[in-house]
């Protein structure tokens, strides 16, 4: 769907904690990455 907000596609919101464990994180809407939402 097209919309006024565009999500950055190549943003890795995961960190590997050890060889066999991966953690995905999310915060408040639009607050997680350094620049989550780009202007359209």
């Amino acid at each position, binding site marked *: *769907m*097209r*919309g006024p*907000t*565009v*999500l*950055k*596609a*190549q*943003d*890795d*919101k*995961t*960190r*590997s*904690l*050890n*060889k*066999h*464990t*991966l*953690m*995905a*994180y*999310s*915060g*408040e*809407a639009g*607050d*997680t*990455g*350094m620049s989550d939402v780009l202007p*359209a």
Partner: protein
Amino acid sequence: MYYRRDEHSPLTPSPVQFAEYVQANIQLYSKRNGSELSPYEVSSFVRSSLAKSLRSRNPYNVNLLLGGFDPITDKPELYWIDYLASSARVPYAAHGYAQYYCLSTLDKHHHPDIDFEQGMKILRMCTDELKRRLPIDFKGVLVKVVTKDGIREEPYEDEKPVYAP
């Protein structure tokens, strides 16, 4: 020496900071004690870090999904940890806005003994649903797979056409 967060910062710390803080502390813990933590142990470690932060002046407002593979029991595990530091083991999960669109699909199609290919098919159903319904220009996903050999990135075609039902 223990990795500590800056408790005097006036701003709410970002989820990225929490992730890197926990990552460093888990590596430190494993080095000190000479043992790799199992996914369950990692989940307890993360939960307790978040619980401590929750009772501080500026807690992290972060929701987490923790996926892991236990090489001893030879089983995959997934933990849902929310910002109030409650942890639950779940068979499948989604978070953020995606959960409103994906959980019903996962609920219908997930089965405990599906293989990798079937899992990718279900993921395709989820991203199709996001493209159809999420009122945001959804560009695609980054797919990571946790196996007994480690963590790898899985190539995923984001530009595949989506058909209306």
